[in-house]
């Protein structure tokens, strides 16, 4: 995947770190110290549709479909910039009874973005 830098307008991953101390949650979340709430942003013109940044073969297949169906202008909805790889977030925190809870929240951190 591609990380957003400068004024790129193409589909990329925007890093955004939430520091739990900054939002006043460091007293009940023991670990980690923050959460990388990355998100996908940018445009997906049709010639990069299906370009997940990882498996280009999917992109080739989509391009061939577009050529075959000369769907250049008619692809309804176009292509969107979406997460293509995500990982879990492990949290250690206190609940309202001051019990310590350790849990893995699946698919919480976006690792890569691509065009649907």
């Amino acid at each position, binding site marked *: 995947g591609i990380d957003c830098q400068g004024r790129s307008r193409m589909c990329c991953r925007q890093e955004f770190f939430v520091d739990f101390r900054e939002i006043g949650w460091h007293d009940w979340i023991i670990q980690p110290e923050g959460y990388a709430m990355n998100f996908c*942003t*940018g445009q997906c013109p049709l010639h990069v549709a299906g370009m997940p940044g990882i498996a280009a073969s999917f992109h080739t297949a989509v391009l061939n479909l577009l050529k075959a169906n000369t769907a250049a202008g008619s692809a309804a909805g176009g292509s969107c910039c979406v997460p293509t790889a995500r990982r879990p977030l*492990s949290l250690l925190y206190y609940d309202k009874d*001051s*019990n*310590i809870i350790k849990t*893995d*929240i699946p698919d919480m951190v976006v690792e890569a973005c691509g065009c649907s």
Partner: protein
Amino acid sequence: TPRAGSQCPACGGPALDVESQRELLLDLAKRSILDKLHLSQRPALSRPVSRAALSTALQHLHGPPQGTLPEDNRGQECEIISFAKTGLSNINQTHLDFHFSDRTAGGMEVQQASLMFFVQLPLNATKTLKVRVLVLSPHDTNLTLATQHLLEVDASGWYQLPLGPEAQAACSRGHLTLKLVPEGQVTQSSVILAEAVHRPFIMAQVRVGGKHRVRRR
């Protein structure tokens, strides 16, 4: 987009200035974490835990083997450490209350639970001490004996006692009461320590919301 007044490239709406965008993203981050933890708001901590008790407890935490994320139909798995409230104790017995808040509408199911407590034997102790652990269950307004375990203690230190189905069911219901009764050696002070650093606690492996989920085909 940093240029105020321009258009948002993704949705075409009016672009937010950087500060309001940051506020929006922080709010979104808070909401996504609370939603995934099945919480409507961040918990207000009722009884802060001392750092000493926290570090002792964390040494005994062992996460699920890395990379084993809960399968779809197993609900979310987590580990809970619950510190005891020591109720009506005296030198002959220690009364322990544990509370597990029900974390989701789907309920939680305790799959494994064990009690950790610290025993301080008198310096001149000559023989092994026996500690009887009584698992009590509410019956009307009284507490009746559900089951009991006998543990042999031959030195001071932390002791771990795996708890059976009765205690696990009580944890799943949200409240477990135990009574620790040292037998044999009579001492002038309780041998079960319960002050901040040696606070007894329970470690439980829990499945949240997994009981009633429809198995996806």
